[in-house]
């Protein structure tokens, strides 16, 4: 009987970050392959499939999220340097940005205010608690930024991280269809909208459409991360003053 042996191995593995890290990369690898197999269908978004696989696996083996995160944190940590890395596409698109600085500034300002304002407003109308409203407010910004803001305005940072991911997936899945319906064909406008509304996951999708859309989406994600950090706490105060709960 090698039952006790397996048990020992499992005890070792579940206490080590190796397992969480490895299953994250394996699940993403499988999900990405599936995504390519479906000709990059937005419905087979690799984040959706890998998150689903991992949750099912963790539930099936009775592993807690905190045990998984011992390993998952190494991947999660890279969101920080990835945010810094956005300076590079921003710099590379600078000449194009300089020509379009006024439209981009106006669109970003409106987009960030609409993203935060509409999520607080809708959640409030639909009866969501203040904690939920505040966790939703920064959902269109990239994860580390959104989590930082959520904490400042009284949301739950870890819930915000989840909502950020769902928002990104929603944007990536619906984006191209929406732009078709409203007849926006310019890759610059599509990219800016994708980056403002759906941050990195939207940007990954935008790069599939065209490199110009991807670059502008990355640019919008970088700028809106900055704008969200500056505007959302102020917007929350303003809403508090105008529409007290």
């Amino acid at each position, binding site marked *: 009987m090698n039952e006790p042996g397996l048990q020992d191995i499992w005890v070792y593995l579940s206490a080590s970050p190796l397992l969480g890290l490895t299953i994250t990369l394996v699940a993403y690898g499988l999900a990405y392959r599936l995504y390519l197999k479906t000709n990059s269908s937005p419905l087979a*978004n690799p984040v959706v499939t890998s*998150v689903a696989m991992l949750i099912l696996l963790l539930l099936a083996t009775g592993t807690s999220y905190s045990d998984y995160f011992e390993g998952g944190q190494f991947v999660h940590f890279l969101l920080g340097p*990835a*945010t810094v890395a956005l300076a590079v596409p921003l710099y590379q698109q600078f000449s194009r940005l300089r020509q379009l600085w006024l439209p981009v500034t106006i669109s970003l300002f409106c987009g960030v205010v609409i993203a935060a304002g509409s999520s607080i407003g809708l959640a409030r109308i639909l009866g969501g608690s203040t904690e939920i409203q505040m966790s939703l407010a920064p959902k269109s910004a990239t994860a580390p*930024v959104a989590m930082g803001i959520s904490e400042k305005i009284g949301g739950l940072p870890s819930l915000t991280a989840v909502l950020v991911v*769902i928002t990104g997936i929603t944007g990536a899945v*619906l984006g191209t269809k929406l732009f078709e319906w409203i007849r926006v064909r310019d890759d610059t406008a599509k990219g800016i909208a994708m980056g403002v509304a759906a941050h*990195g996951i939207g940007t990954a999708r935008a790069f599939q459409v065209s490199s110009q859309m991807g670059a502008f989406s990355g640019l919008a994600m970088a700028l809106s991360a900055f704008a969200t950090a500056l505007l959302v706490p102020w917007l929350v105060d303003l809403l508090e003053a105008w529409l007290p709960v």
Partner: protein
Amino acid sequence: MQFLNGITLLLVYQLVGEITVRLLGLPIPGPVLGMVMLFVTLMIRGKAPESVDQASTALLSHLSLLFVPAGVGMMAHFGRIADEWVPITLALLLSTVITMVATALIMQVTTRWFAKPLPEKEGGNE
């Protein structure tokens, strides 16, 4: 070695960003300040060094992967999401759609208003 230099530089900027934000009590997250500082550095230097370019391309080309552990965090919030699933799902979905549509339309309209009409397939003539 190039890649290692690039990653090191990104981490140094993030670290300086985090420290500055804490020292000065700024309202923005550390990595965002790090991004701004790196952007300013690139502007001053006039080009992105190969190492930084490589490291940032590597990180950004699999950006979706980096969101996976946070997404799995959903399982730790099942209870709360189940309690308030109507406001959460509807607000999230509608708000994302509204934001995307509004931003795309605003960008399209303002580009027509403000940008000098450029001939097609010709960029960057300042």
